[in-house]
């Protein structure tokens, strides 16, 4: 399946916490020893994260973000691609 047609779902073992103006990802199963790093989402990252629900395709998320933000299509697609890749790597989405 092409990436743009993917419908990502969030890992239920990852909880997000909104602290002031940023969102962090808190894995439910990690302790101090394994919690060597924390993943923080920017404002735009938070918006993209909120749209991941198994019903919005990558392409639909791209379109919604393009409507909302003042950014070139190429920049958005590149950043969003890296974003999904990272989230997949840390098993926050599948």
């Amino acid at each position: 399946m092409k990436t743009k047609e993917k419908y990502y779902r969030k890992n239920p073992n990852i909880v997000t916490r909104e602290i002031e103006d940023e969102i962090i990802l808190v894995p439910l199963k990690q302790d101090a020893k394994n919690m060597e790093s924390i993943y923080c989402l920017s404002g735009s990252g938070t918006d993209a994260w909120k749209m991941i629900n198994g019903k919005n395709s990558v392409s639909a998320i791209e379109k919604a973000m393009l409507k909302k933000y003042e950014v070139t299509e190429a920049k958005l697609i590149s950043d969003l691609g890296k974003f999904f890749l990272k989230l997949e790597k840390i098993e926050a989405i599948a």
Partner: protein
Amino acid sequence: MGCFSSPLIHQEGYSKFSRRVHDKFLKNRIPVNAGIELTRKCNLQCVHCYERGVSKNGREELSFLQLRGILDQIAELGSLWLMLTGGEVLTREDFFDIYIYAKKKGFIISVLSNATLITPEIADTFKKWKPFTVEIPLYGADARTHDGVTGVKGSFDAALKAIALLKERNVQVNLKTFVTSLNYQSLKDLNKFAANLGYGLSLDCAMFPCIDHSQEPYKYRLKPKEVFEVLFETLQNKKDYLKTVKETMENFSCSEESDYFYNCYAGKGIFFIDAFGFLDVCIFSRSLHYDLLKGSVKEAVEKHFPVIRGRKLEDNSKCRSCQMRNFCNFCPAIADLEADKLNLDYYCETTNFLKGMAEKVAL
């Protein structure tokens, strides 16, 4: 159109993240650390415990339903680190209902437990829902010393079994000890013992009166000289520490901040909720509490805490101009707990001891 913030996700080392978030929250006066006492019940009777003989204020302990509401409010406020303490938390049959609910809210949780009630099943649940740490006190390297502090025979063996159960399951354990006159002499053995178990040991010797104002724990308080012997055991470089003390002493000057009773994180970086729903600025400061059953965490933080933190020292207080103030263990909570028996002598004697040592160090 909104401003696109790139990158969308970034990875940050835990220590850096923790420092950054704490700094940010302190600036905005939102307590990022919350503590909840889940129960006053305990199966041990530690000599230094500040909760002995405390009445229930005529109320029942908070139910799971009430705690859920409070956890929702704390999460909404933005607090991230959560300490669950007692009494002994595992005396609550619904402990894991509360704990797992808090986990699902995304808190970074430390559980304080004497560990004696940890069974293989409980250890399995901790393995499945890992806490940030389980903090376990160990008062001696042998049963006689440890049980002498806890007042309960068999508590040492039970704690060791629990530590092994948690270790087998890779659940993070932090060992700590409270240094009293009963275990002070065997501290070196305890450090070695903890190291053999594969753990470090954090030490604490700041003794507090009971929250019913009894000064019974003071019977076991270390002498000033002993406090520093313990402190210097933990320091990499005693001389550097004493140099810092000397520099701070010499540069001390009264500022507007010196007028305030609270110069710590109480109510600014932390807050504490007791088993009956009373919210205070810290675990020991219990005299000006806010009743959460009649209000909200947000209201307490926004309206009640500034009043408490706005309290000023009395005009004739010798603490205001004391150049050792930054190294003194005396705090507003102790003043509240000692009530009408307030006696600064111990603290002055302790800081004077440190001052004497610092003055001998060449800068």
